[in-house]
């Protein structure tokens, strides 16, 4: 088998045992790797209706066929599980050297179940090339309470192995914060609470040291494409990522009236200039950084007043800045540092705090009022972030995420909870990006800008971004399928516009890696199959049509400021778009998948 190792490592933490299972080629071809393979394994390995924090909920790490091929931006891995935030599928990506090491460990996926007593970390590493790697369960009590960065350093030190790569949880994961991340090398598998699932298993970290190289079918052909893509990746198409990073979005979104501000009360922020990527670059830029084997290198480190460097990207900037009314770049940098140290998803952290601020201002959350939590106040905001990670005081409520917190608080507070399926919205205002609004409503993992890049249609002039219609259904479905193929090959989305014909070129590349004869049509079908299986998993876990919907604020209030002033989103507009989506997917009018469609995709 080329491009894959053909092996799944199943680990049971309760019994401290593991076993190797062959992965059949038909599954790999049907789902590729990454998110696709993870979804397929989750569907098969998770007992129906499993509680996310149950030992039986599998936490699945996957690698992918393009990982390790030298193709730029492909050093990525996926984590898939049942989300404690949404109760549906959580599929999260992270990247860099841990991804390469996962592939070199000689496996395509790890599925972890059970619960360790006391906490452990896993050390997975082969002794000699070609041998199955050794799996060790190592004591982790001394690591409990440590940040992911500290954990990584300590593990390297005690293993006396500088080359070992580590993915770890911080305190947020340990304390089952429902939006905790798994972190490696300062990056995060961020959304959906995968870190909390890891914490529920008393698994502090996974350390890898691999030496299994995977063969590709046509090394020269792969190298030639990799070289071509390397060159393309350095053109003007990726200039934004290379010259400013994703923080460039903030000023643009503000001008276009799509920057969620003060818990989606507005779509412009009066202090956007101070927080803009341009200003940060001019005033605080420290260093440019990139993932392993990436030529785009989108990461930006900014220097805070203390001299410390801090990574910042758009979603973190938006969520810990305008969404909470925070205008001081220094406070945003500090908040981002806390989220990194604790292992908190910055989007859900910002979204949940923005909910708490609004509740406090409306007199619904006395404890938040006592703490002085309100829009724009940096100090209580930073204290609340720490409280969430530690689950102390009000933090214990907020660690549940905005949906559960609102349910517990009751009253009108649910109106201010800005989530879809329990996952807080990212930094794209749905009322002025109508295709994205649909993308958020129907996404299997909740409000997400990565599993659906529907905003592309809104930002292209292809559609009227301020007005929705049924035609958006096809655009969103196509965008989801495209994202699923990218996330399963895996190729970073920031390379996507460097392809002239993504499906045809990817099919050619995949063929040269695997030796299969892939067509663009086959890859399109793979994308549809993955999204359909995600939905099928959600249906099994209790999905109902009302889960594909948007928060009431978006349907009840028009935007009060900016170029989109006066623009709202109506119930009938959203219904029409959702109907168009189900139709484009070939699902029934209520969003359930007909047997015929399942059979057509080999899922029946």
């Amino acid at each position: 088998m080329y491009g894959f190792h053909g092996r799944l490592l199943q680990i049971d933490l309760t019994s401290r045992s593991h076993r190797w299972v062959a992965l059949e080629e038909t599954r790999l071809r049907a789902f590729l790797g990454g998110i696709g393979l993870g979804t397929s394994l989750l569907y098969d390995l998770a007992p129906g209706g499993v509680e996310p924090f149950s030992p039986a909920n599998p936490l699945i790490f996957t690698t992918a066929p393009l990982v390790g091929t030298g193709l730029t931006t492909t050093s990525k891995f996926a984590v898939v599980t049942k989300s404690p935030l949404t109760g549906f599928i959580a599929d999260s990506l992270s990247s860099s050297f841990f991804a390469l090491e996962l592939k070199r460990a000689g496996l395509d996926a790890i599925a972890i179940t059970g619960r360790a007593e006391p906490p452990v970390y896993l050390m997975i590493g082969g002794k000699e090339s070609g041998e199955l790697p050794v799996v060790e369960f190592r004591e982790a009590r001394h690591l409990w309470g440590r940040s992911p960065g500290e954990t990584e350093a300590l593990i390297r030190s005690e293993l006396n192995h500088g080359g070992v790569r580590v993915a770890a949880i911080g305190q947020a994961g340990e304390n089952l914060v429902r939006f905790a991340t798994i972190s490696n090398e300062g990056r995060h598998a961020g959304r959906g609470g995968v870190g909390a699932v890891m914490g529920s298993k008393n698994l502090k970290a996974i350390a890898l040291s691999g030496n299994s190289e995977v063969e590709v079918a046509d090394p020269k052909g792969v190298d030639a494409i990799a070289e071509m893509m390397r060159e393309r990746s350095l053109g003007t198409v990726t200039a934004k990522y290379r010259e400013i990073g994703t923080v460039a979005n903030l000023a643009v979104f503000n001008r276009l009236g799509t920057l969620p501000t003060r818990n989606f009360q507005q779509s412009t922020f009066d202090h956007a200039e101070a927080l803009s990527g341009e200003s940060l670059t001019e005033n605080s830029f420290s260093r440019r950084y990139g993932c392993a084997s990436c030529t785009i290198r989108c990461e930006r480190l900014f220097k805070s007043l203390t001299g410390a460097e801090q990574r910042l990207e758009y979603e973190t900037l938006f969520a810990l800045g305008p969404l909470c009314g925070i205008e001081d770049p220094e406070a945003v940098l500090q908040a981002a540092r806390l989220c990194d140290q604790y292992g908190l998803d910055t989007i859900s952290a910002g979204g949940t705090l923005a909910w708490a601020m609004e509740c406090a201002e409306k007199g619904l959350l006395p404890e938040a009022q006592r703490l002085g939590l309100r829009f724009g106040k940096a100090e209580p905001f930073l204290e609340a972030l720490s409280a969430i990670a530690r689950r102390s005081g009000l933090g214990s409520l907020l660690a549940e995420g905005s949906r559960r917190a609102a349910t517990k608080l009751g009253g009108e507070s649910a109106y201010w909870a800005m989530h879809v399926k329990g996952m807080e919205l990212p930094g794209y205002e749905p009322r002025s990006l109508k295709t994205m609004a649909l993308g958020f409503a129907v996404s299997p993992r909740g409000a997400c800008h990565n599993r659906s890049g529907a905003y592309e249609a809104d930002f292209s002039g292809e559609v009227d971004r301020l007005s929705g219609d049924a035609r958006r259904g096809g655009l969103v479905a196509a965008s989801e399928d495209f994202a699923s193929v990218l996330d399963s090959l895996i190729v970073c989305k920031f390379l996507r516009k460097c392809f002239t014909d993504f499906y045809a070129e990817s099919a050619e590349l995949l063929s040269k890696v695997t030796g299969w004869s892939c067509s663009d049509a086959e890859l399109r079908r793979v994308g549809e199959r993955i999204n359909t299986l995600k939905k099928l998993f959600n249906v099994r876990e209790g999905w109902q049509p009302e889960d594909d919907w948007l928060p009431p604020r978006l349907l009840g209030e028009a935007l009060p400021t900016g170029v989109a002033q006066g623009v709202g989103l109506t119930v009938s507009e959203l219904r029409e778009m959702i109907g168009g989506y189900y139709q484009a997917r070939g699902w029934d009018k209520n969003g359930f998948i007909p047997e015929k469609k399942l059979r057509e995709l080999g899922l029946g």
Partner: protein
Amino acid sequence: MKDDQPSAGAAAVVLTGGKSSRMGRPKALLPFDGEPLIVHAVRRLEPLFSEIIVVAAAEQELPPLRRGSGQALPVTLVRDQVAYQGPVAGIYYGLQEARGAIGFVTSCDVPFLSLGLISHLLSQITNYDVVVPYWEERLQPLFAVYRREVAPLLKDQLESGELRPISLYKKVRTREVGPEEIRRFDPEGLSFLNMNTPEDYQAALKRWREQRGPAEPAKESASVPCTVELLGVARLRAKTREVSLALPQGATVAHVFSALAEKLPTLVGPVIAPGGNSLASGHACNINGRDFVRDLTVEVRPGDRIFIISADAGG
């Protein structure tokens, strides 16, 4: 060589294939008066010549040779068979292509050429094989008239490595046109003001604007004021947030890019496509925060705010 009445039916030969090494980027692509310099040169020569031949290096990038309306310019494009052999090669390839007996040879980087002077040079060819101006103590072979019949001699020069055009002048009947004669048609000799460095280019732009100056008040009432807001890469590159423009009535988005390229040449390449009237891939344009523009012929309205942003909203 025979005498005739050649100037009717003469070809203009515009050389573009130099290395532009001091300029740092291809001269032919430099934005000038809202269009690439090569287009500007061709349009300037059009009233005088029925045939215009553009000579470029083999792999050289050229903008679309079109008017602002999109209509193609009547140009014959010739590629050097061997790159960077110097002006002798360019003159040779251009004359070879000419349908008529006479060619006026110039380069694309002389935006202030005087049609009156060119007409005079053409009129002097009757009893000569070359008419070449003498200005600022040197002959000006790239603003001269040649008979096509001298082409074989140029070929011989190429083969023997005689790469200076003036070597030809000793071998054929050459008429030198001196400074006094030149001043009758071009008092300041602006026809010979070419651009070799970014400073030359900026000076030429400034001069061009000044020359147009007296006409501006009349235009002003008919102009379309608009503002370009630069975001992201464009802002960092230009080191400015916005630029005010006054465009002619009927100006389109393409005109906006051209005018912007002229004001901020640093954007040409990274943000504005070479040629100056469209955006480089990866960038997008939005008018008033409302409409994303895909059609470059969209007209700009007075007071419009035009955003130049990254086309990729991912993050």
